[in-house]
């Protein structure tokens, strides 16, 4: 069952592009942070979306989840999902609102 033990990983050029995106996104986050307070509602959504994007880029490309065995994704995303559910459940139980 030799399915893709050494999958074709991206080239350093791809890694560099990802890094540029990560840096730019971080810069955008920084810029948005100093936007007027009236935009606070939108800011939260944008921060969350950008953060998920950065998270996914690192996990998929730098950690090779996009190219590697699906089992790895299952192990990791399993833990991640469970952790997210526990956080959300606790927030609901404590009626904590951000």
């Amino acid at each position, binding site marked *: 069952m030799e399915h893709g033990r050494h999958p074709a990983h991206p080239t350093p050029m791809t890694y560099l592009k990802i890094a540029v995106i990560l840096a730019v996104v971080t810069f955008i986050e920084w810029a948005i942070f100093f936007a007027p307070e009236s935009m606070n509602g939108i800011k939260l959504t944008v921060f969350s979306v950008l953060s998920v994007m950065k998270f996914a880029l690192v996990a998929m490309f730098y950690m090779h989840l996009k190219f590697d065995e699906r*089992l790895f994704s299952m192990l990791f995303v*399993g*833990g991640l999902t*469970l952790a997210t*559910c*526990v956080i959300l459940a*606790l927030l609901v*139980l*404590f009626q904590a609102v951000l």
Partner: protein
Amino acid sequence: MATLAGVFNRPYKPTGVWGWISTVDHKKIGALYGVTAFTFFLVGGLEALIMRFQLARAEHGIVSAEVFSQLFTMHALTMIFLAVMPLSAAFFNLVVPLMIGARDVAFPRLNAFSYWVFLFGALILQTGWIVGSSPNTGWFAYAPLTAESFNPSNGMDFYVVGLGVLGVSSVAAALNFIVTIINMRAPGMTLMRLPVFIWMTLVTSFLLVTAMPVITVGLIELYMDRTFGMNFFNVEAGADVILWQHLFWVFGHPEVYILILPAMGIVSEVLPTFARKPLYGYPVVVLSGITIGFMGWAVWSHHMFTVGLGPIANSVFAITTMFIAVPTGIKIFNWIGTLWGGSIDLKTAPLFAIGFIFLFIVGGLSGVMHAVAPSDAQQQDTYFIVAHIHYVLFGGSIMAVFAGIYYWFPKATGRLLSERVGQWHFWLTFLGMNLAFYPMHFLGLDGMPRRNYTYAEGMGWDFWNLVSTVGAFVLAMATLIFVHNFFRSLRKGEPAGDDPWDGRTLEWSIPSPPPEYNFVAIPTVHGRDAFWDQKYGDAHGHVARAPAGASSEDEGHGIHMPSPSILPMITSLGLGIAGYGLVYSFPVAILGAAITMVGTYAWSMEPAAAPDEHGH
């Protein structure tokens, strides 16, 4: 090959004590786990006897309230973390590689590490008895009872550090078994051909790696509060002590399934063997086990119905709790279905397994009663709950553990446990168990609160308490009979042969006790009940040639096994020292961490198998 051999001389096939300290053989590690855990089972039992003696009559003055608090706390911690969990680990170690046709676990040295960390964690947890201050808050250690101001002795520190260290052991072992089961199965052993015990080990391992970090965080927060004066559970600073309850039970409920799923796995192996029938509804049993594993995450607040979470939260958790009874019930039907129409051979092992079904149903029924939140409000903190947990943990886990011991003892030692003594052991256990725990239902419904060191005369509780105490001593006698049986059979037991029970799974295809390398040739599996098929042919009458797929390089002595190493023990010794350091003095903690670090470096530079041993 240049290694750090000059620094750490590697033991070369040592014998005696050093052989045990440096072993990386899963069977020997299983034996270490088993013996250690059973010793703690006796310690926990002794604690229970003292409590039962105290409660035998009203206003009995055997122990003080403070000592009683320490007794019930340590009884629970000892039984859960130092007896049932490591007894399960003993079976994982002993049986998993044999059942899946592997020569060892995926990480033999990590496996030894898990055992030694467990041992040191257990010692830390028990230190309180020596220095005179054991944890005294109940095993759940609700805040703010654990705060430095209310609990200034070191007892809670042993709790925090001991459980933390034990968590490291559990996670390391669980990761090891996850990789072993996914990655070291014999050719042909697909997931749906795995013995149910292996499935339950896998589910349990996943529960361990996900649940342990949650309690670890809770323990860290408690440690920070106690040691550095932080505010996690400091109400004056705005903290909510209910957070501890949530963190504890988010871990605590999966933990309940960590305790019972391996037991269900053992029963699912023992019953088919002695009914001489395949397990009824294998896919459903497996699926139920997985469902229980998932559902176990969604029920934790049923331990907190009286906290005041509100009607919505209580309703949600009541419904999920009732729902989790469904897969459990399905399993019970499947076990009964397995027995139905089988040619049942009532040896001791299946007796314990059938006892498990019977008692677990009782415990399960009272469990569903607790799921009804309003009803639970009446039962909370009474002996009714104590009755319930002993029916599922003693009637469930421990009965299954004994079934497993009678079942696999011959494989591990090459000798049979005495059947005659075994039958006595079973019937006395069954009798003692029901005498000790059934009356607690009555006491609880009559309002007797748990964790009280005594009760007043004239409450009407005297009779059933006395009965319960008598039952506890019957249980103690039964356990002593077992210990006698164990040691006698070890020396004089009837030789077992390779396959004393006409077994169905691969461990019975090799000699008893198995050689270090387990399998001369790794078998090829063609269906469920792999060994049964080899002996009698599968459903289509095809007899697989046994053992198939032998490759010539593996024959005889050419088998490449990992070599002994003392580094796992040294690395975990560092953790143990660091643990004591966290309680008493930080420089010692740094020393311990340094030992662990040196051990880790040496370990990573040490080859898994000594290179000069084989001409590989």
